[in-house]
């Protein structure tokens, strides 16, 4: 208690020192608090289900085909479920693009909701009982079963204000058919994570049974391990099952392996996990720099207290006791810094959560809970010990006799303490170089992402997503003369006629959002049937004639699709350069025939819709890459939209003016042509691209801010050490001046000392950065972790800042009055 009381007294007596130290620590601790809250809430907190570490996600993979992750086919899922011995439960939810956004018909409007068809086993797999009513039943998985539905807690609150009489009421869902579902249950808060699903519909109404299409990889599978079973065991068993399936069904596309991963990890993705851990490393480095700064402050202060310490030892204190007292002061300081840091961390966390531009799962639930506060307390104490240890050690054993003599200044610990101070500054500089290098690489990478040539021109491009899934339109098979594309044609004409519109096209899908190999196998006429893993694959898309022009792409060879490529005409397709290069390397693809699927029917054969199986390649277009932050091109086939049986087109409108100015007109024309369609989702391509880089933008922004803070702290640390050295050497400087030293001699004395420290720190930092920036490899685009340009820029920046930090105390030294300096004690 005495130690604590004395510690407080010391801090109050030195308000300037206390304020600087507390603020420095608060910045470091606050940053750690904020980032740890995110890591705790997003990565570490278990999922809100019983025995969450038993929950895993499964998917198929074929590394020999370059496919790391592929959804599961229905028949494969059924065989997995029947043959495994490691899982107590297994469930399936469809996962193709567009399978998670449904239209809810409310009284006078239609609302979008995140929903999904699911097997009844989802609820038993996750192990959660409903809050009200019941969950789906296994018989409701059968085709034509009871149209029941289960609500999430959030949806129940929003639509029914938490009314407990909701069971038995109906909801109308209008997606690929309008249907009423009876509400049978409501789930408790938190159920559903990590997915964002709010409404669960029975699998029986999916329209496709699980027994169909072994080569169609549509489904997400989750499972619960049996007690005692490990992921490694599960993986081994599932791989054996998969090998048997491949042997049993040689003509089907079946992944060669089964990947099994913890459910949460799979949902977050490796990129996000890596980014969060990197961020934590960054803020830990910032805290270390802050501790080094405060340690230097305390060393300087401790030197001034050497006489007091010597006296305490002379009065009988053991060294341990003195160190305890000094550490008590450090810890009190650190706790004050921690309290302010918790406040700063809470504020910073609120900003990040409010933004959540990257839609990071569970981020909205992140708060400063007891775990985080405990962490803050822990690192505050640790910081206190860290920065207090060196000063406590150094000044708890002064040369007693010398320290107690009148007229002597602290000398005994001076040299050792000076070396410690210098070492701390070198360490700070080294750490800030590592952070700057990381930030520089990420900034370069992000800039390249923004400038990435995706094969089209994003400026002055407006997109409008139309939802044809609502009733009044046919399902996505069987194109007919009266299918929705007819009013679509009229809509396109009206949009083309708008002032400021240069070109308008429609496509079955905008652009891929994820990288990864294409899913659809293709056949090239005349080439022998290959094994499934050797089968060519491509992405298929239906586009109207002006799509390429509207996108700003280019037909490199042959011709574009035209209005003549209608339903009745022979099949016509465009292919991209990547497909041409890969599958027609030594021949002209124009005139070749190509089809979806691996089979090789004769020319003239028709598919189930009565359309020709084979289409002729009429043109080769420039590659258009994905919307992924690190865009890649894959083989693509563009079929004429009028020959393509699909729904939900996306319009592309190239404008001569600011595209947002036409948004209202697009909505108006759409309503005019197709009145009962939900309003289209209109966004500019620039906004879409901005969304896709939201996560890298957030990561880069945070790393840059912390790196900047680290540099500032290191510069302040360097300045502090030099300023203190100038004060300590005032008498010496006076002697030098009296002996004829010029201003430049004094400047070089001080700046030389400082720059030597900076150069030493830079050297250590660069070597460390070379080793550590490898951890960023997966986050970088177009930049190597050892990019020489970045390292050179970081070195120059650091030396420039260091020079400024050295200049100020050097200038003070050069301005000293020799007489005053000689009298200085």
């Amino acid at each position, binding site marked *: 208690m*005495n130690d604590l009381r*004395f510690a407080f*007294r*010391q801090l109050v*007596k030195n308000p300037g020192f206390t304020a600087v130290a507390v603020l420095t620590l608060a910045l470091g601790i606050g940053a750690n608090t904020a980032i740890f809250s995110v890591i705790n809430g997003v990565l570490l907190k278990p999922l809100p289900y019983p025995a969450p570490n038993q929950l895993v996600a499964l998917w198929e993979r074929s590394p020999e085909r370059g496919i790391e992750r592929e959804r599961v086919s229905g028949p494969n899922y059924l065989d997995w479920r029947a043959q495994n011995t490691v899982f107590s439960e297994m469930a399936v939810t469809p996962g193709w693009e567009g399978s998670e956004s449904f239209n809810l018909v409310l009284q006078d409007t239609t609302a979008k909701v995140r929903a999904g068809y699911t097997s009844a086993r989802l609820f038993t797999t996750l192990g959660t009982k409903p809050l009200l009513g019941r969950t789906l039943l296994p018989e409701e998985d059968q085709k034509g079963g009871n149209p029941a539905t289960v609500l999430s807690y959030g949806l129940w609150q929003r639509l029914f204000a938490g009314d407990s009489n909701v069971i038995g009421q109906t909801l109308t869902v209008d997606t690929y058919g309008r249907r009423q579902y009876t509400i049978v249950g409501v789930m408790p808060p938190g159920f559903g994570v990590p997915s964002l699903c709010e409404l669960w519909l029975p699998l029986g109404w999916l329209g496709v049974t699980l027994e169909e299409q072994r080569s169609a990889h549509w489904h997400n599978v989750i499972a619960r391990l049996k007690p005692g079973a490990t992921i490694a065991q599960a993986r081994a068993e599932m791989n054996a099952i998969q090998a048997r399936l491949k042997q049993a069904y040689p003509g089907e596309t079946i992944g060669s392996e089964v990947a099994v991963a913890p459910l949460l990890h799979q949902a977050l993705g490796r990129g996000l996990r890596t980014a969060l851990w990197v961020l934590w490393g960054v803020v830990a480095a910032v805290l270390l720099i802050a501790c080094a700064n405060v340690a230097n402050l305390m060393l300087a202060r401790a030197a001034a207290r050497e*006489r*007091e310490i010597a*006296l*305490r030892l*002379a*009065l*009988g*204190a*053991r060294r341990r*006791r003195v160190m305890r007292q000094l550490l008590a002061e450090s810890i009190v300081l650190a706790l004050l810094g921690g309290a302010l840091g918790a406040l700063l961390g809470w504020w910073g966390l609120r900003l990040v959560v409010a933004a959540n531009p990257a839609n990071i799962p569970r981020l909205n639930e992140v708060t400063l809970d007891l775990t985080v506060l405990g962490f803050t307390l822990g690192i505050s104490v640790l910081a206190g010990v860290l920065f207090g240890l060196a000063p406590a050690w150094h000044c708890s054993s002064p040369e*007693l*006799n010398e320290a*107690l*003599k*009148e007229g002597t200044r602290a000398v005994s610990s001076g040299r050792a303490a000076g070396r410690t101070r210098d070492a701390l500054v070198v360490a700070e500089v080294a750490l800030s170089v590592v952070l700057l290098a990381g930030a520089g690489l990420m900034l370069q990478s992000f800039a390249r992402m923004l400038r990435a040539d995706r094969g089209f021109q994003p400026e002055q491009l407006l997109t409008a997503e139309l939802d044809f899934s609502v009733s009044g339109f046919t399902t996505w098979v069987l194109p007919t003369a009266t299918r929705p594309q007819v009013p679509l044609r009229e809509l396109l004409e009206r949009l083309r006629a708008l002032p400021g519109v240069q070109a308008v096209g429609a496509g079955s899908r905008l652009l891929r959002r994820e990288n990864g190999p294409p899913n659809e196998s293709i056949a090239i006429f005349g080439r022998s049937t290959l094994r499934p893993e050797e089968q060519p694959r491509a992405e298929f898309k239906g586009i109207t004639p002006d799509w390429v022009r509207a996108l700003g792409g280019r037909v490199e060879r042959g011709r574009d699709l035209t209005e003549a490529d209608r339903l009745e005409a022979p099949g016509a397709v465009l292919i991209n350069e990547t497909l041409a290069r890969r599958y027609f390397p030594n021949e002209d693809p124009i005139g070749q025939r190509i089809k979806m699927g691996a089979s090789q029917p004769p020319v003239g054969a028709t598919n189930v819709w009565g359309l020709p199986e084979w289409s002729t390649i009429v043109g080769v277009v420039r590659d258009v890459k994905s919307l992924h932050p690190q865009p890649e091109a894959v083989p693509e086939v563009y079929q004429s939209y009028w020959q393509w049986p699909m729904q939900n087109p996306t319009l592309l409108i190239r404008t001569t003016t600011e595209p947002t100015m036409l948004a209202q007109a697009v909505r108006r024309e759409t309503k005019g042509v197709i009145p009962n369609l939900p309003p289209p989702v209109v966004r500019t391509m620039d906004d879409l691209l901005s969304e896709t880089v939201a996560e890298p933008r957030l990561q880069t922004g945070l790393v840059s801010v912390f790196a900047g803070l680290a540099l500032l702290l290191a510069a302040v640390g360097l300045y502090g050490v030099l300023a203190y050295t100038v004060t300590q050497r005032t008498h010496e400087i006076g002697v030098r001046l009296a002996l004829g030293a010029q201003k430049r001699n004094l400047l070089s004395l001080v700046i030389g000392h400082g720059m030597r420290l900076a150069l030493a720190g830079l050297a250590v930092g660069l070597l460390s950065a070379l080793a550590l920036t490898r951890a960023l490899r997966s986050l970088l685009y177009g930049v190597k972790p050892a990019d020489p340009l970045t390292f050179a820029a970081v070195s120059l920046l650091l030396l420039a800042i260091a020079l400024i930090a050295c200049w100020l105390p050097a200038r003070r030294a050069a301005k000293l009055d020799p007489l005053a300096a000689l009298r200085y004690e």
Partner: protein
Amino acid sequence: MIQLRNVEKCFKTRAGFSYVLRQITLDIAEGEFITIMGPSGAGKSTLLAILGMYDHAWEGEFLFSEQPVHQLNPKQRAVLNKRFVGFVFQQFHLLDDLTVAENLDIPLSYRDVKRSERQALVADALDRFNIVGKKDLFPSQLSGGQQQLVAVARAIIAKPKLLLADEPTGNLHSEQGRDIMELFKKLNQAGTTIVQVTHSETNAAYGHRIIKLKDGWLVKE
């Protein structure tokens, strides 16, 4: 109580060795009041620091209450110092951030005396030295004489057998100095062995005998 035999202290310089003390041999009996005198640089304060076991860089034999100090390591010497020695400095050396009471409490706290006992001893000392009314003041609020009074109280609060005083009145005016010397006399009469360093003949007269040093040598015992 104290026996020194050929105690020497020197510094190594570029020119050779520079001696601070040369072949110091002396005996101090328990209960004596000894004064060490000599010109500046004679080695008086150094001899006092050796007697107080603060200075370890010396050679020779030093017996303290039959204990061979010269064979003990610094830690063991510190234990002896804590048990038997009190020191009064010329500059008072009170802890500026502690009150008078807390300054008195500190040596007891370092000797692991229980809190309740410490409180009693401090109260006793405040009473004995008539400074009860100043117990919550800080050193900067006291006069030089009052500070030295507190310093003396602090030096004897743990009841040392030996009290060492280095120029105890050096920073005081004559009346204050006289008060301090009268106090030393009383303490000595009560049984405390006192060794003081002083330039003042008046102060030296309070003691039983004078030891003179010159250039590190013992001149007269």
